[in-house]
């Protein structure tokens, strides 16, 4: 162990000199290397949000339907009625996916699924949001193909349908792709599970995979390797086993259902360290861990390596001493390994022992509440404008940022669990709730078609809520993933601040609480920072699935109407009014289709309504058909005069009919030609 920490050691664990001084003050002594590593992990951006926590405080978190608020547990939980609740969260796995796209993406799914079933919820849906460089480059094609395969193989094996997502391309993601995965789970209110390690004397049971050196220092984002201690340099990417995760889901849900666990916590970033410290922190207790009890997949692991390993598919359960045998019986049936690795103690510290000898002892509060929080200096700096989309109609439909995503989503099982109501002809996926009458609506959204990080945040919320509203469902909660560049550069901080401010303003204006989230900073490569990319996962509730609305035009002769202002900047009050109006129209049966206008503006929206419905249209209006102004929804209706009662601006565009899309002054296209361009777009590039 060390007498005085050399700066190299402080640096290795991702700490800064001022943070080391703070550690000296908190402990009243010098930490040994293991203790320093515990601080490095727990004080990492990933674990404690030190650069973003103060900013996140402005997000609206409260609403009557919220059962578990953002930051309280592994995932947020909202009431959906009938005694049922939904747990959900989105999380990034950007850096692992940049290094090893297949495993990076797969373990991203694995991690977010564990966050959700930890709450006692059965995972019922997966979504994702992906960003790459343009697929005309081999590296970007490789990343796209392997990320999609990784997401598919993991989720498919688990038997959780991937019901929605989005993929976009921009040069800024070339060196740093974004892979955000979202999981949604369903639970009875009374099965809501907390992660708190309560009750001194209760045992800590580590369940699942053996512990190896994989993913070591994933949370501290190691810039140095451990060669000095004779260890082989290992990649910081973990390897996933969806089969093992499937067994963990079933076993843990059975254990929770039978009331055999007092608490449950998944092992994610910083492994055993963060899971045990967070569990103790939530209960105001402490934990004592004997590292020799942890089953290993490798020999010669040090206590530090055991504490920081990010081996996948592991869960930490808190079990009363008298129930261990019963718990083990269930785990044995599912073929799962388990080790009693320690116990809950009264003294609020994390104590690490090896063969009974003390290796580390740090107060829980020092690792959690006392973590440093930063107000980094910020300075506005322009974000480059997005690349313009083609204005030729067929070229636009074939553009990678507009064309069909079928090549991607047909690799994801969308129908397992037999509850997916609409797959590809609605603006949001609908998943039936038990009983089959009510459904939840789900989508992910991020807007990259602007140069203003405030709008990136606000539009992500507005578009996600608009998509959900276009099915007829009311948005009731959102989760968010903030993908930004380094907070150590003033312009990076400014983008983050603006993104969060936009997200908060829109969530407040639309009345949607933020119930969970994740912050991913340092998304930079040699080529610079990624575009500010706040991603929103939206949850809506549809009371009667028979009233669901899709984007497809339904009948010859129906009138086509644009709901919302014909053009103009984002006005959140108007956005809220238009969304309310479309939900009312759907509920009252006034419209037969609804589709929000997004990338490629009104032209692309109309084309998609035609293609999904197999019907053409003839339209005419004094509008820029490629304008991407917000708050606009294309609807079709057999009784357009009834739409006046909605009280929002509207523009009559024309009628459904025939097999061509005719836009006066712009285009006269056969549906077959449009379909060829739209369906072939991505496949032609890959």
């Amino acid at each position, binding site marked *: 162990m060390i007498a005085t920490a050399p700066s190299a050691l402080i640096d290795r664990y991702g700490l800064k000199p001022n943070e080391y001084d703070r550690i000296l003050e908190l402990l009243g002594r010098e930490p040994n290397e293991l203790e320093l590593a515990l601080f490095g992990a727990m004080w990492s951006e990933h674990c404690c949000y030190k650069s973003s926590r103060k900013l996140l405080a402005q997000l609206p978190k409260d609403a009557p339907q919220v059962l578990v608020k953002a930051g309280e547990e592994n995932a947020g939980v909202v009431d959906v009625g009938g005694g049922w609740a939904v747990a959900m969260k989105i999380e990034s796995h950007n850096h692992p996916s940049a290094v090893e796209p297949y495993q990076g993406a797969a373990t991203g799914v694995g991690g977010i699924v564990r966050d959700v079933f930890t709450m006692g919820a059965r995972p019922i849906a997966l979504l994702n949001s992906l960003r790459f460089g343009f697929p005309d480059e081999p590296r970007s094609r490789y990343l796209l193909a392997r990320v999609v395969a990784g997401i*598919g193989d993991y989720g*498919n094996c688990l038997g959780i349908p991937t019901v929605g997502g989005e993929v976009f391309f921009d040069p800024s993601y070339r060196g740093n792709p974004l892979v955000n995965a979202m999981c949604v789970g369903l639970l009875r209110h009374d099965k809501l599970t907390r992660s708190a390690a309560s009750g001194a004397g209760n045992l800590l049971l580590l369940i699942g995979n053996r512990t190896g050196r994989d993913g070591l220092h994933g949370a501290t984002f190691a810039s140095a390797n451990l060669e000095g201690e004779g260890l082989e340099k290992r990649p910081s990417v973990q390897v996933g086993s969806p089969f093992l995760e499937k067994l963990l889901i079933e076993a843990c849900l059975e254990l929770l259902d039978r009331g055999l666990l007092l608490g449950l916590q998944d092992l994610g970033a910083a492994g055993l360290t963060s899971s045990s410290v967070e569990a103790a922190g939530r209960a105001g207790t402490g934990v004592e861990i004997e590292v020799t009890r942890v089953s290993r997949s490798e020999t010669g692991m040090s206590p530090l390596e055991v504490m920081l390993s990010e081996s996948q598919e592991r869960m930490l359960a808190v079990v009363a001493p008298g129930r261990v045998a019963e718990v083990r019986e269930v785990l044995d049936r599912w073929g799962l390994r388990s080790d009693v690795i320690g116990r809950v103690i009264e003294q609020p510290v994390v104590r690490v022992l090896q063969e009974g000898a003390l290796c580390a002892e740090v107060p829980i509060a020092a690792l959690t509440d006392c973590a440093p929080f930063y107000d980094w200096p910020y300075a506005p700096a322009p974000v480059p404008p997005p690349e313009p989309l083609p204005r030729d109609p067929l070229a636009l439909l074939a553009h990678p940022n507009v064309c069909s995503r079928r090549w991607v989503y047909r690799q994801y099982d969308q129908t397992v669990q037999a509850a997916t109501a609409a*797959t590809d002809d609605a603006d949001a996926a609908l998943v039936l709730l038990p009983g089959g009458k009510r459904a939840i609506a789900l989508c992910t959204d991020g807007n990259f078609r602007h140069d203003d990080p405030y709008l990136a945040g606000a539009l992500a919320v507005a578009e996600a809520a608009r998509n959900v509203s276009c099915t007829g469902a009311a948005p009731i909660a959102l989760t968010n993933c903030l993908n930004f560049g380094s907070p150590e550069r003033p312009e990076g901080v400014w983008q983050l601040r603006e993104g969060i401010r936009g997200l908060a303003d829109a969530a407040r204006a639309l009345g949607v609480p933020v119930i969970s989230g994740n912050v991913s900073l340092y998304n930079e490569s040699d080529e610079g920072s990624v575009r500010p990319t706040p991603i929103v996962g939206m949850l809506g509730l549809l009371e009667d699935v028979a009233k669901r609305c899709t984007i497809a035009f339904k009948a010859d002769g129906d009138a086509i109407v644009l709901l919302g202002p014909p053009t103009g900047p984002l006005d959140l009050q108007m956005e809220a009014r238009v969304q309310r109006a479309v939900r009312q129209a759907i509920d009252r049966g006034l419209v037969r289709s609804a589709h929000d206008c997004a990338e490629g503006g009104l032209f692309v929206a109309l084309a998609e309504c035609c293609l999904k419905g197999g019907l053409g249209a003839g339209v005419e209006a004094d509008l820029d058909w490629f304008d991407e102004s917000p708050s606009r929804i294309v609807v079709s209706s057999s009784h357009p005069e009834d739409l006046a009662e909605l009280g929002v601006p509207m523009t009559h565009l024309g009628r459904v009919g025939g097999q061509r899309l005719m836009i006066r002054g712009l285009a006269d296209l056969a549906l077959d030609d449009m379909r060829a361009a739209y369906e072939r777009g991505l496949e032609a590039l890959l």
Partner: protein
Amino acid sequence: MKVGVVVFPGTNCDRDTVAAVEAVGHVADLLWHASTDPLPAYDAIVLPGGFAHGDALRAGAIARFSPIMPRVVEFAHSGRPVLGICNGFQVLVECGLLPGALLRNDSLQFRSEWVHCRVEAPVWGLQPGAVLRMPIAHGMGNYFPDPEAPSVEVALRYCDPSGRVTAAANPNGSWDNVAGIASGNVFGLMPHPERAISDVLGSRDGLYIFEALTRALVAV
């Protein structure tokens, strides 16, 4: 009537299959793969979809050695109906109750999409020529026949919505567009009938398969 639905570690369509069996008015029990109990209490056995043992080696290659499988083979030999769906079909092929093999899809990718299948033979009273719309979701559904085996009864072929068997309608490269085969009272298919049991899911055609199972029960 009582249907046993076998659960291997990694099976993930067990609950959906139980719901579909119940939707046609029968009782379903989940049967754990490690059980060696005889199965006389059941009128039919279903091997549902999923990734038994994580598809280690090959889909179904480990599941065929599960303790329950000799009982399932015994059950099939007694003349009672056995249905294998997707991974269940793969297990039936691996354990020899059905001939041939299921190879990787010719795209080398997992395929999840809605397909149409035409009924080719009156298996369990299915009407030849009927076109059924059901989802597929598999990475290894590319059927290849065993040239040594007695002639295979092709039960279902992939087709277009109008019932024409075309190369474009084949989602995985399977021999002769095969989507399902039967041998006596054993029936395996790649599409998921349990995911097509109501209009809101996109089709009710899957009920037709479970109703056929009922007719097979009556026939025994």
